[in-house]
């Protein structure tokens, strides 16, 4: 244990340095070159960054605060976009059924969708990479147990698992409490349904790395296993993990939107894109198509951009697949 303590002091700095080296190699040469050569990828990157920026700075850029009840007037409900008859110059994309400015609501919705997306990808990544490292590096019983659990989980599609976890939390937690911690419940539900992919990938790479000389050398000079895993093995297995994470972000955003659409995700009080689409569906037949079409378009553009980025990253890292 004293060994861990000693190394623990320098471990964070060392880890950062390792990761930095990794990133430098990552963006050196081929990857960056193919990025600058593909207009589609540059556009997707710009779109993604715009969405992230809009989500982060939402309170600063939107014309109205959709959560401020004082600024909402029910008389303003279901106003069409400016360019249609009956449009109001105050509301660029029109208003929803409660008289909220649709543009502001969409920006806030994207904020929640992306927030849940990033958090659940991070959670799935930490869990999956951690279990994958343990599984691949230690092997034996630990490996067998973790991989059997992964096998069972892979039998079911992710959306069903997320739905089940979310539904269960609703039954177990009191209604008020669930209203407060829905964010964590969603992140847990989506994260738990995606960890297997990371675990399998990392396990495979870790098993290869384990046999290499630098790991043996570290073991011989008495570096504790946990430190070997984190400082030596982890940086060498991160490449594919980042690819999976990018593609997973798109899937996580879709999953969140789907759960919210089904009425089990984000509550109505702080609508995400999926919630907005669900609410809008009820107004399709009354002619107010914009309430559902604009959030839907925002969601589609976001997911498409992230997907294109992920595709490019995968191809750039694996020239074999092209």
């Amino acid at each position, binding site marked *: 244990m004293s060994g861990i303590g000693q190394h623990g002091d320098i471990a964070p700095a060392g880890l950062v340095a390792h990761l930095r080296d990794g990133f430098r190699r990552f963006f050196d040469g081929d990857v960056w070159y193919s990025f600058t050569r593909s207009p589609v990828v540059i556009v997707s990157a710009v779109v993604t960054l715009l969405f992230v920026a809009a989500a982060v700075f939402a309170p600063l850029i939107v014309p109205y605060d959709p959560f401020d009840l004082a600024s909402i007037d029910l008389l303003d409900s279901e106003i069409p976009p400016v360019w249609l008859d009956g449009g109001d110059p105050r509301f660029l994309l029109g208003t929803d059924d409660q008289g909220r400015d649709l543009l502001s609501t969409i920006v806030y919705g994207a904020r929640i969708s992306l927030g849940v997306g990033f958090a659940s990808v991070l959670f799935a990544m930490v869990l999956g990479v951690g279990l994958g490292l343990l599984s691949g590096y230690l092997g034996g019983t630990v490996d067998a147990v973790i991989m059997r659990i992964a096998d069972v989980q892979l*039998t079911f599609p992710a*959306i069903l698992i997320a739905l089940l976890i979310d539904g269960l939390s*609703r*039954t177990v937690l009191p209604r008020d409490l669930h209203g407060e911690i829905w964010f964590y419940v969603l992140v847990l539900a989506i994260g738990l349904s995606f960890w297997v992919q990371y675990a399998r990938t990392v396990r495979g790479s870790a098993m290869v790395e384990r046999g290499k000389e630098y790991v043996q050398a570290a073991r011989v000079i008495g570096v504790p296993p946990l430190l070997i895993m984190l400082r030596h093995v982890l940086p060498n297995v991160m490449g594919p993990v980042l690819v999976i994470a990018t593609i997973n972000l798109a899937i996580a955003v879709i999953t969140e939107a789907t759960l919210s659409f*089904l009425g089990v995700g984000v509550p109505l009080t702080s609508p995400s894109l999926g919630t907005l689409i669900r609410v809008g569906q009820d107004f399709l037949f009354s002619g107010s198509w914009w309430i559902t*079409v604009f959030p839907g378009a925002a*969601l*589609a553009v976001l997911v498409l951009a992230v997907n294109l980025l992920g595709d490019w990253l995968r191809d750039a890292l694996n020239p074999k697949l092209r």
Partner: protein
Amino acid sequence: MIAFVVRRLLQSILVMLAVGFIAFSLFNYVGDPINNMVGQDTTLEQRQELRERLGLDDPFVVQYGRFLVNAVQGDFGLSYRHRRPVAELIAERVPATLELSLVAAFLALFIGVPMGVYTGLHRRGVISQLFLTVSLVGISLPTFLIGILLILVFGVMSQDINAALGFTLVPQLPTFGRGETVQLGWWSTGFLTKSGLLALILPSVTLALFQMTLIMRLVRSEMLEVLRTDYIKFARARGLTNRAVNFGHALKNTLVPVITITGLQLGSIIAFALITERVFQWPGMGLLFLQAITEVDIPVMASYLMLMGFFFVLINLIVDLLYYVVDPRLRADKAVAAGHQ
């Protein structure tokens, strides 16, 4: 072969036991079943008596065993909400979901495979690029959004579009429910009436679109892979017609992974039917399950979980066995390995 089948069967049974365990834990530890059955004015003694009569005081293993025995016989208890046997509720809903899923799977396969073959053979063609772009959009649009857009076009705006054009370009299609159904024994089918068939169109297209793009991309990448191999070059060198090379040699060898993925996707289709059912108010199992979640109807939730688990395990098992039948190399490898041991 027999050893392989037995091992796969044992694995499947283990997975089902695990799923059953989760479902059973749901029953037992989420809420108090007694509270869900009796009214406010039931005394503690009566509750205790009911608890003993239902065997809720028995040891864990005994209860789990009883649950499994009942489940195997199709007995999942009473729905808290509907006060009817869950098995009955689900049996009413199964035909709707299965008909929708099968039509969707059929569409996905019979449009996706030709599209994949075409894009694989004509890599740089304009139509191929079009297919690929459309497929990327198809993957990026969530299922429910596709459904809503279809409702918007074919349900809400079709009459306006046709009126503006002066002729019928976009037919008006039903966007709600199953239409008229015909009862065949316990199975209710929408295949035999016009309104039933019309009602199937939009939901099944919605459900099929994602799987179709997936199958198309898979077939395409497999075709590209196979077309690069030596035996294809050799076949061309022998002067075989393009048709014989492309379909007799290349397509045949891409079919193994396609069968696997399509088979496995059938499970996903049944699960994803849940979303489509919500969009189109299709009275299937998924809608029942969603209601059960919002109403905390645990017996229904647990049995849906068990049933889904059963479907998935069954499909995985069949696909694995099919794989073995379709690919002679697998059998040969096994035989060689056995010979060496």
